[in-house]
């Protein structure tokens, strides 16, 4: 009986994963040391047959304005996001630079790749980009 219940939960979970819904991810840039991040560029890849991007939102200061992107990227399966700031002052190791809203199966998680990140002098810095899932009420 328990096994049947477990199987039922698992199948419901799989169905839920495959069901289309609105969901969002924060784009986080993590640097290897405290830095005042002043420019970043990432590439996000997703399954265009199942998912589309519904909106691009800004992140925390100094990247509160929405990042630049090519509108074709909303449905093309790949989008390049980039932003810079001349007001970057605070040195830290983690920056929430944007939020990306999608419509598609929750199980279809996009992939992100950092293209470049730079400090206030425009010098490339070591960093990595990641997507952090956002709960609906956030």
């Amino acid at each position, binding site marked *: 009986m328990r096994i049947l219940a477990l199987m039922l939960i698992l199948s419901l979970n799989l169905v839920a994963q495959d069901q289309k819904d609105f969901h969002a991810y924060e784009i986080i840039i993590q640097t290897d040391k405290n830095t005042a991040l002043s*420019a970043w*560029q990432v590439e996000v890849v997703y399954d265009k047959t199942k998912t589309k991007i519904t909106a691009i939102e800004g992140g925390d200061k100094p990247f509160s304005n929405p990042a*630049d992107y*090519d509108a074709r*990227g909303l449905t093309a399966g790949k989008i*390049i996001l*980039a932003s*810079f700031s001349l007001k970057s002052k605070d040195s830290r190791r983690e920056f929430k630079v944007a939020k990306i809203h999608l419509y598609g199966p929750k199980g279809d998680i996009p992939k992100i790749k950092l293209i*470049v990140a*730079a400090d206030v002098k425009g010098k490339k810095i070591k960093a990595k980009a990641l997507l952090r899932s956002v709960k609906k009420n956030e």
Partner: protein
Amino acid sequence: MNEHPDIDELLVKELSGEVKSHLKDCDVCSQVHADIELLDIDLKDLNSKVEIPKTVDEKVYEDISYTSKTIRKSLFRRNLLASVSAIAAVLLLSITVVTNLKADKPLLADINGDGEVNVLDSLMLAQNIDSNTPNSKNDLNGDGQINSQDLQIVRDAVVSLDGSLP
């Protein structure tokens, strides 16, 4: 015939009647003719007696074969070199054409000149405009001013999916 015959007349196999009668009277010419006949006999004798040893034959054949092989190898190398050079030239030409095709418009937005168009170019141009130190090369729309319109061109090129300027 009072005059001596030419040497050519004595060298022929069949002497003419005049020469024959001259030889009867002229001891000098008669002696020369006798010497010629002797020499002829000696040469015939020599030809019939001389035999080229087999080893010499083989050596000569080897020498000829070696020379022939060397010439063939040299020709092959020359042809190979010519073919490789031709292929390399075609490849180089193709690469140049493709590179030039790729590198026309988007590289206008390469503000920092690192060969790539990315957000660092947007940042540099924005900093130049902000500090009022613009570079005349960065007048991308050609309106004589370097301002936010030029910056927008770079920003669009940075995120463009096909790498082209809008």
